[in-house]
């Protein structure tokens, strides 16, 4: 204590070092550095590293998500365009098929109509033959009856003959409408 009180009176040079204080500062500081290195730094550095990782990991995750979404969108677009092509193709096919069906139907209809026509023709022909055959027998009978009548009435003159024939033809003409139906 006396040393310091004595120093009061003297000229004090604050620049003059005290060895004990220098050593104290060195020791205290080195201990502090060591303590911080040993107990503080690892913990903080770990936190920093973890945080960096968390941020970078989050970014990577988001990037992956984005890529995934992009891929999905691409896939979707691809599918959509495929579907569109498919639909167009189907439509085209349908149109072609429709056209073909129409053609086929038309052909069928024509065939059918031709068939029906020919059938009708054949029927008509048959009926015609039948009628002709009937007519032939009838004409024969008529001719026979006419001849009998002509002979029986003793034809006096030409005019009378002509009348008889005309009457006969008129009968004939009125007859077939009844017979033919």
């Amino acid at each position, binding site marked *: *204590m*006396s*040393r*310091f*009180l004595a*120093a*009061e009176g003297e000229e*004090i*040079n*604050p*620049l*003059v*070092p*005290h*060895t*004990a*204080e*220098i*050593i*104290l*500062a*060195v020791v*205290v*500081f*080195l*201990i*502090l*550095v*060591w*303590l*911080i*290195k040993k*107990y*503080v*730094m690892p*913990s*903080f*550095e*770990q*936190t*920093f590293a*973890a*945080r960096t990782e*968390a941020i970078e990991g989050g970014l990577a995750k988001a990037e992956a998500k984005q890529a995934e979404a992009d891929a999905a969108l691409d896939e979707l677009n691809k599918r959509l365009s495929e579907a569109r092509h498919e639909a167009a193709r189907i439509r085209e096919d349908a149109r072609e098929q429709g056209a073909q069906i129409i053609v086929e139907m038309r052909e069928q209809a024509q065939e059918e109509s031709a068939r029906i026509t020919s059938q009708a023709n054949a029927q008509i022909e048959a009926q015609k033959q039948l009628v002709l055959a009937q007519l032939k027998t009838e004409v024969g009978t008529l001719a026979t009856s006419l001849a009998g009548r002509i002979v029986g009435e003793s034809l006096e003159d030409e005019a009378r003959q002509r009348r008889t024939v005309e009457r006969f033809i008129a009968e004939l003409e009125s007859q077939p409408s009844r017979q033919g139906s």
Partner: protein
Amino acid sequence: MTTTGQVPGAEGFTPPGPGDFNLPPVFGDSVLFAKPALLLVVSAVAVFGFFFVTSRRTALVPSKAQYVGEQGYGFIRNSVARDVIGSQHFLKFVPWLVATFFFILLNNLFGIIPLIQFPTFSRSSFAYGLAVLVWLLYNGIGIWKHGLLGYLRHVTMPAGITGPILVLIIPLEFFSTVLVRPVTLALRLFANMFAGHLLLILFTLGGEYLLLNSDKVLYNSVGVLTLILAVAISFLELLVQLIQAYVFTLLTAIYIQGALAEDH
């Protein structure tokens, strides 16, 4: 904070001087038990305690206290160590630089913390001690990196200077790197703290003396003004204390970087 010589008495006002920095031991007869030395130890304990507590509960989303500790650590780590030394080597020096900054900062802040009110580094010996350590550190790194001769050449021969003038430059470079650096480092810190504290004592004690020991109203009012000025100077000192802690740390980092650099 004051010593017996500054108590205003009948004999008049005694201006504060270098004697105010020679504080008597709290007990015993060693300078190691005086207030400055005790403050130095307390500051180291406090700095470590602060970082120890704030670094314990580490979570990705930090709590408030942890956030403060992390910001402090991260500031020195990123803005000083990494930006100056470079991302390759800086991690090894982070504890040193963090300790340097916060140790000096707290000891400086002691100058304006009420009831403590003594900036520890206004004792030049403490500043010498830190400067010696920095000197050993950067020269050691240089020798470890380049070898003794390689480091001497690295230190004394700046790139871009050739010819006979190099002979004249070599001793100059050697002086400025090896001798001037630690001296300026220590003196800058010490002188700032010393002068700041002296200024504060002068304004506080002067103001007090004028206020209490004068019969004239004019002197009393000047005393009040002086005390107000002392408060303003305290804020100025806060700035100086921060800057000095930062400058010491930054220069340490720059010296380390210079010793590690491939070319000058």
